């Protein structure tokens, strides 16, 4: 299987706090890959870096072979004067990091931590926003219908403001919104956060269906390690901004360290 996402030696900082240190992760097409780690490990930061919401201090991220994020500062391209005086021959060669909307247009969708639904928009309007990049009205209508079948509760609530939905419904709404653009790579940031076990189970089953039937590659971030490892093919463990362990999910479930630290065994 070919490689879809290549994260190579990236670091990200918030001022003096270094949130990611030399992180490398490779995701192959068709897989479900999970990243587990405690609160504050740097999981969300990694997802934000992939979609261009946090700049890289070093390293690079490529999607389908195209560099989508890298350290722009190293090339002086953040400075308009330097950019202006740069030899145009060189300027043509170096690529800049893509903007978040450009990354979305490549086929990457993120379901952000805490769902981030557009609370004052109705369910249907939220789905419309998910399909913002698509011009084909017939395709959008078909997609919406699919979503209402896949998440029947959303169909029933389509005219309601999203703020009136329960946490689980909002999570489904956020996933459906991300799927509206028919992404090739779906990034999920703690989809189980704050939800009842039965609902979490339902959501993870849906994630597997999306992966198997629609052939969407999934990169899943979770604190709920057991659920994430059972659902995924491969796993990575993050501590203090570093990847400390990478293996198949099956192996990780048997790993003594993982058992002790993340599975409570």
């Amino acid at each position, binding site marked *: 299987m070919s490689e879809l996402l290549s994260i190579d030696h990236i670091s990200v900082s918030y001022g003096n706090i270094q949130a990611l240190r030399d992180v490398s992760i490779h995701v192959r097409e068709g897989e479900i890959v999970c990243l587990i780690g405690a609160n504050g490990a740097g999981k969300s930061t990694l997802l934000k870096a992939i979609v261009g919401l946090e700049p890289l201090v070093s390293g690079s991220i490529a999607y389908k072979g195209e560099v989508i994020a890298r350290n722009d500062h190293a090339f002086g391209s953040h400075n308009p004067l330097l950019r202006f005086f740069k030899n145009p021959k060189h300027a043509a060669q170096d690529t800049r990091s893509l903007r978040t*909307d450009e990354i979305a247009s490549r086929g990457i*969708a993120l379901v*952000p931590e805490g769902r*981030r639904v*557009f*609370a*004052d928009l109705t369910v249907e309007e939220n789905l419309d*926003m998910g399909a913002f*990049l698509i011009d084909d009205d017939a395709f959008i209508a078909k997609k919406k219908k699919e979503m209402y079948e896949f998440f029947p509760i959303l169909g029933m609530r389509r005219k309601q403001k999203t703020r009136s939905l329960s946490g689980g419904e909002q999570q489904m709404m956020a996933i459906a919104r991300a799927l509206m653009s028919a992404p090739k790579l779906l990034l999920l940031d703690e989809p189980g956060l704050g939800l009842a076990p039965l609902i979490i189970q339902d959501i993870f089953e849906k994630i597997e269906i999306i992966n198997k039937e629609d052939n969407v590659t999934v990169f899943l971030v979770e604190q709920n390690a057991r659920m994430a490892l059972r659902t995924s093919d491969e796993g990575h463990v993050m501590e203090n901004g570093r990847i400390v362990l990478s293996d198949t999910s099956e192996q990780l479930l048997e790993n003594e360290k993982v058992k002790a630290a993340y599975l409570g065994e």
Partner: protein
Amino acid sequence: MGSWAEFFQHLMNGLTLGGIYALIALGYTMVYGILKFINFAHGDILMMGSYIGLFVYNAIRGELLGFWTIIAFFLSMLVGMMFSAILGMAIEKIAYKPLRKATRLAPLLSAIGVSFILSNLAAWMWGTKSKKLEYPFDNSPIHLGDIAVTPHQIMILVVVVVMMVALKLFIDRSRLGKAMRATSLDQDTAKLMGIKVDRIIAITFAIGSALAATAGFLIALEIKVYPSMGTMTGLKAFVAAVVGGIGNISGAMVGGILLGLIETFGVALLGIPYALRDTIAFIILIIILLVKPEGLLGKAEKEKV
């Protein structure tokens, strides 16, 4: 107050004044909704658009008669609107956008600077003496029973209603309008949807500035065109936007109309001296801020973590 006729007279005056405030208030509120920032150059963008409209009107009006002068008037207004729209976008790009990640005070000061620059520029280029904008029609009042309505008032009401309905439909129904609402709710998530947030911000400035130019051109018939014409009206429209709930589009409409009505009836009924008319707006602002800081239709803002 003497009679119903008098009441309707004041109502008409209040609604037209309020409609003007509302058109201007929309620009403040739409920009605030997305950037959480008050564009203090808004009144000067109104002034610039009014000048351009005036020049175009004087140039094309010539010997036109009747109906054609009205067409010329609206064409000139359209040119003024487009000029202000482009000016608004340019100001955003040059003076505000580079400061988006700076402290909240920086773009505010930049806006005040832009405001001074524009009004000084206008005074330098076109003089401080007000320029008269001729009515495109005979503005003698039309008597409906005991009520006297001027064609100017009718024009203002029609234009205001058309603009508001069009804006509301655009914001509520269109793809771009929904994207504007999404962007004002959550910029990062809007970007994740593939929305070009910078473009949405530019469009917001364009629409707000065009609406301001419309208001400026409409009142110019009465108050003439001069470099500081947008200052007081702009400030009061800002009050209207805050009263209605800053960031809320319906709130700006309601706040504007309400302010116009209160000013008019305040002078007419409560016997507030005309010279104190402008004070009313600010007294209302202070009362509203004390009683309901988020404004009439505003939501209490939760601090984002």
